[in-house]
């Protein structure tokens, strides 16, 4: 590579790194319906959601994280009739088409323990979403799976339906206390409207309101680089990122899209690198500031490149993607060395 090209690359890298966005804190809603609506995007039209509280009338714009309390009625300790989907007239959803959802992520649980919020796969429980005879069960090892039709979109784009959610253990025992979550995507049957970004649906059983909120806050704004919401930015996250590197356009945090642009690319790698192997945080907002500071201080391991190569191998990414990852990692390391070795 000639010197001018190297210089241009470094310059570009510096700009990219400097501009690498940190995912903004996302609003979360507790006890609210999701209010789908159609909005124009550069590539057409897409489903977005707001949060809407039936009881208070409060609207939370662009909400994608919805929390619910289980067991509010006698005889139903692990049940709630949520999430609700409440699109109003003028939503832009096409009348006559059907609104449906599909499962986008497996079931994870935080036990509410003292210390950082850390969601782990829910190995013992499953979340059953149903509407009439239609149902789907989401487990700790579920992957992307078909959901079912929620209902027909009515006059002027309105629809109001509630799914039933039941948390259960296969052996009939009571699910462990904790905050459980999965993710779904909304779509319409016509095919001309892009599906929604991932909507996170979380259910609390047995945690205090404070911990419920803590869990929701972390779910909505995890540490950049934490693709599996365990509050660690480590090899597992790197594998997820590598698996989806250079893919898009509607990927999510759990795919490795940390900057929220729908793609997994170099800026996401930068965000992950900044927090790689740094300690978990107690900050409810995801510890963005702390994470960035500690990451750039160089305390997160000098073996990032080798780990990246290993992650790419585990993720079995195609060779062009691997080359892209390695090149990107080199740029990340250049940036890191400049920050951690000021005396050289």
């Amino acid at each position: 590579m000639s010197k001018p090209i190297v210089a241009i690359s470094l310059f570009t890298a510096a700009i990219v790194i400097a501009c690498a966005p940190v995912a903004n804190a996302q609003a979360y809603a507790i006890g609210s319906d999701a209010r789908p609506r159609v909005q124009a995007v550069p590539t057409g039209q897409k489903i977005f959601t707001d949060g809407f509280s039936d009881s208070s009338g409060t609207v939370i714009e662009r909400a994608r994280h919805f929390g619910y309390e289980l067991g509010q009625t006698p005889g139903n300790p692990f049940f709630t009739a949520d999430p609700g989907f409440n699109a109003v007239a003028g939503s832009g959803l096409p009348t006559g088409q059907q609104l449906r959802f599909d499962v986008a992520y497996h079931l994870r649980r935080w036990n509410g323990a003292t210390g950082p919020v850390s969601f782990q796969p829910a190995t013992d429980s499953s979340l059953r979403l149903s509407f009439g005879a239609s149902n789907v069960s989401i487990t700790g090892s579920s992957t992307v799976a078909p959901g079912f039709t929620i209902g027909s979109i009515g006059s002027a784009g309105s629809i109001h339906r509630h799914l039933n959610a039941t948390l259960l253990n296969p052996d009939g025992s009571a699910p462990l206390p904790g905050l459980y979550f999965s993710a779904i995507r909304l779509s319409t049957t016509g095919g001309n409207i892009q599906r929604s970004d991932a909507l996170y649906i979380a259910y609390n059983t047995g945690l205090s309101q404070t911990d419920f909120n803590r869990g929701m806050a972390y779910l909505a704004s995890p540490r950049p680089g934490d693709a599996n919401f365990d509050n660690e930015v480590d090899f597992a996250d790197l594998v997820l990122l590598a698996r989806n590197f250079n893919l898009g356009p509607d990927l999510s945090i759990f795919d490795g899209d940390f900057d929220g642009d729908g793609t997994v690319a170099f800026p996401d790698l930068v965000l992950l690198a900044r927090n790689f192997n740094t300690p978990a945080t107690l900050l409810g907002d995801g510890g963005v500031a702390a994470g960035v500071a500690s990451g750039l201080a160089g305390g997160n391991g000098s073996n990032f490149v080798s780990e990246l190569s290993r992650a790419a191998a585990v993720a079995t990414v195609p060779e062009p993607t691997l080359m892209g990852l390695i090149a990107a990692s080199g740029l990340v390391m250049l940036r890191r060395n400049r920050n951690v070795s000021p005396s050289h």
Partner: protein
Amino acid sequence: MQTVRNTLIVAALSVASTSSITLAGGPDFDLSPFVGPGSQIAINAFQDDLQLEVDNVRVFAYEFGEEIGQPFFLPDPGFHPLPGSGFASGSLVGFELTAPLSFWNGVGSASFGALPNLESISLGFGANVVVSGGASVPTPAGYAFGLIDLDGEFDDHLETFLLGAGGTTSAPGTPTAGIYLLSLRVTSSTPGVLASDTAYLLFANPSFDGQFEEQLDQARLFVRDTFAPGTNLAVVPEPAALSGLIVLAGFAASRSALRRRVGRHVGSRI
């Protein structure tokens, strides 16, 4: 907490003659119970999408076949006490069936009698389910399910399945086409609050391609006039007016206009 609710003010329509009114079709109404005179539960009708409320309603009608791929399932009836309902926060609202399920085949004058083929209707909410056949009222006859919030409100819908002989919806137990009548009282765990008078739920089973709207209208009028005289039937406005209301409802919802039970009103009634 400040209560937010949107209401469209629609002129009340009182019709003395009941001979040529189209009642069925359009959005379904929820039961909207509240603590009425004498601490007894009274029931209005409330339409969520249009935010329409009709006073003093005890006959509600629903039609199977509206859910894609689930011809014998309905996410109704809904129960939606409004803010200021009078129910205590944290209390529960429920129902209890008061009579066995009965049936009219839609032929001739409305008249409800025995089930033709051992049909039954199940009403579920989570793990709570009661199944009513034609022989007797089940035991228990209902359950509590709706948790009243700080404003006196909740909005929950039961899941209703129409089952044929043997508790199945498939042949040979496919439920017979016709109209099914279920009777229930609304109950509350609020101390001192008495159960409502009987409310009547009509479920039309058009069996895929039948047209039962006219018969459903007849049934509503018959049941109202026979069992609940002096009450109103909730209707939605004519399509032209309805489209305007839908737009208004969306507009009103976006403004999140404030609303309380005091000063509310009123959808069309008959």
